[in-house]
């Protein structure tokens, strides 16, 4: 498994979402992606089973006062 390269990833992912990245912004973006990767590594530590759903729950509708 190659190591995560935030600068290279940023360039490719930005192209995928149609986000022009000014080269002057790239170091800051890469730094924040590296920080996000560290947070993601923490989140990955959680042992989640298939029955464990995401927090947001869609509500089909609500009447006033209820």
């Amino acid at each position, binding site marked *: 498994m190659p190591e995560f390269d935030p600068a290279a990833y940023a360039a490719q992912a930005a192209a995928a979402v149609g986000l022009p990245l000014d080269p002057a912004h790239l170091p800051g973006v890469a730094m924040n992606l590296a920080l996000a990767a560290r947070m993601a590594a923490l989140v990955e530590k959680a042992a989640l089973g298939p029955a464990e759903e*995401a927090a947001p729950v869609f509500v089909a509708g609500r009447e006033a006062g209820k």
Partner: protein
Amino acid sequence: MRRFLSAAALAAEIRAGRRKAAEVVEERLADIAQRNALSNAFTEVTAARARAEAAAVDAKLAAGQDPGPMAGVPVAVKNLFDLAGLTTLAGAKIERDSPPAAADAFLVQRLRQAGAVMLGALNMDEYAYGFTTENEHYGPCRNPHGRERMAGGSSGGSAVAVADGLVPVTLGSDTNGSIRVPASLCGIWGLKPTYGRLSRRGSFLFAASFDHLGPFARDVADLALAYNALQGDDPQDHAQQWRGVEPVSAVAEIAGLRIAVADDHFARNGHAEAFAAVEAVARALGVTRRVTIPDAALGRAAAFLITMAEGANLHLPNLRRRAGDFDRATRDRFLAGALLPAHWVQQAQRLRAAYQAKALRLFDEVDVILAPATPYVAPRIGQDMIEVDGQSIPVRPNLGVYTQPISCIGLPVIAAPIAEPARIGTPEGLPIGVQLIAAPWKEASLFRLAAHLEKLGVCAAPEPKA
């Protein structure tokens, strides 16, 4: 001129006919004109509106009608709340190009219905993405307890306007700590209600999964007055869970409340004054019990990722067209947030639910948990790094280390200011606060405890020295 007004006392005087709302407004406008430059709290003063609203309150009273429980109370709101006829800036230069708001935000409407008088809009971090209110476009907000110090954020102007005595009540928003952090750094009371309690309609969202709105005040009675006025049914906010109005009071009564101190994550990651503040409150209450909020650090990580992704998605059109117009403090975080793998965000949302389930079990055994609000007192404006636990770390994101895990799961929190911060040894006697955390929908328990702490004298808003 009385510098610190009590909203409750002021409303009582106006309702009794001893003061005119119009006179109070003129006094406040003059004071703001004279002193706002010291703090940079207000970004817009709505003088004409305030005069008209005050006149309407006085006219109602003259006609024998009830103008409401906040009759004539001067208020102001973070500049992400819609105020009819004004462009909602949300701390951004980009939003100057947006049309004026067509209507007041729901909570602004609630304040007006209660008789409050709107004095203006308040400074904040751009798009609420920050803990410091060092806004590049509108200037830094300055802490009344040391003008070279950060106000905290993102609702920095809201905290400063109250701490400085410009108005007695303000509103802010809290996604990851943006009410509790500035309340702590400025030494005032702040309430982040349960997620879904108050309508967010007409406020500029940041990360909708976590966005809460709430009030700031200098005492518990005013915090309760404002919170009671803000409650209202709004089916247009899909996140609101309407339970009817559940009024709170500032009656000091803690019989039956089981209280404990949060340990583990909340007993490290900060400076001595953060823990001394919690211990001062615990000692005053005779609390020795410790509890661990399980997976708090993981919850913070989840909040971090979800916030990045939701915030970036909201602003993607502008990030594509005019990234250079964002505040440099937010720009690269938003750009990075637009690029996160979906798996990271979805895993974070699943972890959030699992973390919530574990944390809620704690409330089978305790009613209120005490935790630090911020890891240190207000840093100096412009300070980038700080030493914590022997490591030099970025000062700004770490300001939310204790608040993020709690808003991640929507628990109600009152940030309570230590009355005499110098006595617990804070640097330069600067303010600091404590989080009082309860189970969902238990705001009333928090108010009972807050009033008790105020009565004991351990928690109160310290007066700025100058």
